[in-house]
């Protein structure tokens, strides 16, 4: 089985973020970047299929030079090889532009299964996976919390996470694309051997023209006009004082407002 895992490098979500000069994104100079959490779960799911049988796991990431760190992490965890689309023309791509780039990468090889994270932790867009599925005309399932390959290897059975603790079980014929919810597994850490071995693994770096794409095809329709801290609005009244004072005041309010005490 040949598996593609689409990964993104994002800022550590616990960072202190500041709005950049243009007011459309955050300042990135002092941030630590890492593999998107959802994508780590997606990669782990692919690696488990590899551990269970014969599979080749390829990771693909689109991003600037620093994204090679995220790719190294993925290779150290156990991916076999990588494609890093590192092209200035791709910097401003929106979700559809990214899906078109991944489409060009994927159609050059025939993958049986494509995995991606449900969404990116930074822009929260959650579109690239299902868009890529549509471009490749693949069946798609999102936010999966379980994946089993059928005995004949021709389909997968997945559980999609619904709301209120419910699950939909659905079969997809392969080839297929799934996006992975966090918590589906426990992602492994790279071993020292894995980290050493990653240095010898192939990382192909095609430009958009190598993939047969024009800048026009990946030009964004979707753009951020402004990124701002949320309006403060009313917000919570913050209680001031010593711990004893604030909890005493809080109990008084809980009594008055809710009657549960």
């Amino acid at each position, binding site marked *: 089985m040949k598996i593609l895992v689409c990964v993104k490098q994002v*800022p550590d*979500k616990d960072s202190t*973020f500041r*709005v950049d000069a243009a007011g459309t994104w*955050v300042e990135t100079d002092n941030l630590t970047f890492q593999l998107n959490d959802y994508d780590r779960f997606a990669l782990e799911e692919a690696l488990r299929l590899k551990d269970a049988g014969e599979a080749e796991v390829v990771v693909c990431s689109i991003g600037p030079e620093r994204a090679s760190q995220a790719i190294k992490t993925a290779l150290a965890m156990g991916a076999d090889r990588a494609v890093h689309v590192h092209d200035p023309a791709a910097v401003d791509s929106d*979700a*559809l532009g990214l899906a078109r780039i991944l489409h060009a990468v994927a159609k050059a090889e025939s993958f049986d299964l494509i995995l991606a994270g449900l969404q990116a*932790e*930074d822009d*929260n*867009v*959650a*579109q690239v996976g*299902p*868009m890529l599925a*549509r471009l490749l005309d*693949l*069946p*798609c399932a*999102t*936010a999966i919390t379980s994946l089993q390959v059928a005995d004949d290897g021709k389909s997968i059975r997945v559980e*999609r*996470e619904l*709301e*209120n*603790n*419910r*699950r*939909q*079980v*659905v*079969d997809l*014929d392969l080839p297929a694309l799934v996006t992975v*919810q*966090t918590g589906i597994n426990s992602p492994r850490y790279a071993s020292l051997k894995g980290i050493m071995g990653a240095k010898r693994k192939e990382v192909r770096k095609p430009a958009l023209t190598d993939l047969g794409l024009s800048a026009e095809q990946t030009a*964004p*329709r*979707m753009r*951020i006009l*402004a*990124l*701002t*801290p*949320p309006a*403060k609005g009313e917000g*919570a*009244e*913050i*209680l001031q004082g010593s*711990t*004893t004072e*604030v*909890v005493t005041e809080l*109990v008084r309010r*809980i*009594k008055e*407002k*809710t009657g*549960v*005490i």
Partner: protein
Amino acid sequence: MADRILVLVEHDAGVLRERTWELLGLAHRLGGESGKQVGAVLLGSGVQGLAEELAVRGGCEVLHVEDPALLEYTQQAYSRVLEQVVAEEAPWMVLASHSPTGWEILPGLAAALGVGMATEITAVTLESGTPRFIARAFNGKFEVQWTLGEQAPFLATVQKGAHEAVENVAAGSVRALSCPLEAASLRTRYVETREGDSGGVDLTQASVIVSGGRSLGGAEKFDIIRQLAEALGGQVGASRPVTDSGWLPPEHQVGSSGMTVTPKLYIAAGISGAIQHIAGMKGSGYIVAINKDAEAPIFQVADVGIVGDLFEVIPALTKAVQKAKG
């Protein structure tokens, strides 16, 4: 026909989901501002009754597609039919809920049409007739204004609970559409829908919920949360990272991907307030947030907050509650 706002209807077990009325509320407001008509796309099998209900209460034309292959939602069947409806109707805007259905099929529609899409929006404004969409980024820490350019249709998934349900509209009508679907060519097959394990916990019925977040640091640290919940006669909730890490089973998770809860009292301890958590608890009667980070988004939805170390505040609060109860 680029004069219509289409809403993707969601229904479950023969009942229209509440979010459909919210989508129609938003669509009617935008329709009023832009002069566009509102339409609802209803896909299913044996849902004529729902079509009538939608036309009356939703105040719009209902585009109704009946097909046995649409009995249960599956991605490919629903996507193919929705694409046909949109191709025929050429709407100005298509709105779906940011739900496991909406986020699964709307991006595919955008890819098929070659247009942009906005995700989990909380508001739409019109600038010279062109929509701008408000959403969140960085786990709720920032608000983002998106443009999708000038090319219709404009697609968006809408955050649950962000808009008032439609009301006081004149009844509309139902139009049956025929969208041929080759069932044999579908490569997604419905197997079943099942409830997750509940472990005897039903947060939706709790009048008090005390939830803990990632900053507790481990399963054993939840004892302070349990003790406070017990003192208040309530249940223990959690944010997603807690259940993902296995510190508590999934039935304790509060959020749009977990349980949506509306207790009289909700206490969020060490929870920063990711969008998806807030979506699951903002309907609570009285919200208390305890967090060491004064900038945490949770303080924006809370009624009252304490900025401090939860390992100090929570045990002190438990004692104060026990004392108050005598």
